[in-house]
Structures are given as structure tokens and as C-alpha cells.
């Protein structure tokens, strides 16, 4: 969390809306430990990471609707997931991410 804080502070000071994605569950080998975070702003900036780069694109896309309507989302990625072909984890693990908008 501390790693993304300077960026998040700057974006919010600029009046941007910010969503934060957190790794809440991992199975098998996963590139980032539980609690790892990525912040996404509505201006398209990103900070931090939730994987080794394999699911970031998909999470950023999902984050747009969270930024829009403020409703949190729980997302799963991994070999057992139907999206495996598009955004599967190269390491073969599974990861779940919670995305929420910072409101207060």
C-alpha cells in the first residue's frame, strides 16, 4: 500500500478518481503476494502491480466500470478460468483480485 501511496495522493490532488485492486487470494505459484496492490486512475495512470504483468491489462479494463459506478468487483484469473486463453497466468497459478474505488 505504501508503495502506491505517493502516486495515489498526487492523482487525487489533481482531482482524478482512483480505484485500487488488491490480491486477495492466490493458488499455486503466483507472482505477487497477498495484499499486493495496483492503483488505476480515470486519467489512465497506473501504479503498483497485482501480477507479473499477465493480468494487469484485464484488471485495468475492469477497473473502469468500478471508477464509473463505484461498485466493488471481485475478479478471478487463472488456468481454470474461462478467460485463460486471453489473460491466463503464465505461471499457471490462480489469483483473485478485489477492485474498489477510493471514496473517502
Amino acid at each position, binding site marked *: 500500500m505504501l508503495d502506491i*501511496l505517493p502516486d495515489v495522493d498526487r492523482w487525487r490532488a489533481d482531482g482524478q478518481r482512483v480505484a485500487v485492486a488488491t490480491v*486477495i487470494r492466490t493458488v499455486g505459484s503466483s507472482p505477487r503476494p497477498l*495484499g499486493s496492490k495496483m492503483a488505476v486512475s480515470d486519467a489512465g495512470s497506473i501504479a503498483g502491480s497485482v501480477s507479473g504483468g499477465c493480468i494487469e491489462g484485464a484488471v485495468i479494463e475492469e477497473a473502469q466500470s468500478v471508477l464509473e459506478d463505484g461498485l*466493488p468487483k*471481485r475478479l478471478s484469473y487463472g488456468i481454470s478460468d474461462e478467460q485463460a486463453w486471453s489473460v491466463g497466468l503464465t505461471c499457471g497459478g490462480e489469483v483473485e483480485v478485489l477492485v474498489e474505488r477510493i471514496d473517502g
Partner: protein
Amino acid sequence: MGFESLRRSLLAGERVVMFTRADGAGLGARMLVWPDGRAEGALGEANLDQEALTLATAETLPATGLRAIEGVEVFVETFEPLPQLFIVGAVHVAVHLVHFARRLGFRAVVVDARSAFATAERFPHADELVVEWPADYLARVPLHANTYCVFLTHDEKLDNPALQVVLEAGVRYVGALGSSRTHAKRVAALREAGLADELIDGIHAPIGLDLGGRKPEEIAMAIAAELVAVRNGRQAAGKR
């Protein structure tokens, strides 16, 4: 989402546990609990809130991860204060070590009595820069099991009394720069001062993992690598 409170706590280096509902019904509901029992927010059910309070005020704080509380899936996140690194000696290696250490998640404090070295110009990136006799300073700040100390002054008048302070306090890591001859002299002096051999043996010397480097930035990286190894339990803390 309690972001401001969490932010303030993290920047102040406080311990705090954050509970976030991960189930469909209450997804995103959040509660922050501090170990002293202060709480903010709610998970939406009184028995959940009560259980969160109990978990976050227990002697052993919960590990970060999903957990079923009263049958509800909750993501529990325990935030610990940053490990602190005291760098004794505002030398060239220290300039680089501050960079690495901060990037690696340590709070880096530089201490030196020599005001010519310990300048804000050289250490704009340090979390704190202290111009004081290291032994005096270290004797009055809290040292704990999450404290790392690195001695780089090349000056036994500055190093040795301060070494004694941190070794007796029982910190997580003590490392001292110098050749094996310098270290032998240091060991003799600490023995002379009455320090027990078990404590003296805890000094990491030669300091740092063996990366074969001699440049200040390479030595700094070797030290930083050793700090990470100790933090991750790869080397017995206090023993090379």
C-alpha cells in the same frame, strides 16, 4: 473505504488491521481496527464486527489473507510499521544504501557526529538525518526486533560505543564494515568493554552478501541484499 484513516496510519507507522468483506452480499464493506481497540467502519453485521475487533486486538495479529468469519468471507490485511534501518556513518556507501533500503521498504535513518558528512545536501533522500554521537542517539531511540543497524564509519570511536548499545538491545540485524583485521580489533575492543561473546558473534562481518564488488554502490547493494535475506529469514538473524 476508510482510505484516509488507513493512509494516515500507514504514514505514521502505526499497526492497523483492515477487514474487507469479499462475499457477494457485502462486497467491499470495510472496518479498520487498531491494536488498542479503536475501530472505524463496519462489516454490516454486529457479530462480524465483534469478531474483527477480537482478531485485531489479540496478541498475535492475523496474517494477511482471506478468512471465514462467522461464515462470511473476509479479506484481512495486517499492516505492520516499516522495519527501520539505522545507518551509522554518513559515508559514500551510506548515500547509496539509503536509496536501496528505502526502495526495499525500510525506513532509513542516517546518524553521524561529523557534520561535514551528515549534510542534507548529501542525504536529501534519508527519512531522517541525525547529527549526533551515534551511541547517544541510539541509546535514546526505541530499538526493537524490527530494527536493523549498519555501521560504516571506519572510526572505532564512533562505531564501537554504538555497537555496544544495539547489541545489548537485541535488534534484528547488526552489520559492520571493515576488513577481517579491522573486525578482529573491533571484537577485542568490545570484549574489553565487557560485552559477552554471544552478542559479539551476532555481528555480520564482513558485512553484506558476497557479490564481489568494491565500488560504494556495489557494497551498498551487497548490504541491502543481506538485509533482505535476514528480513526473509534466509539467514539466521544476527549470524552470518
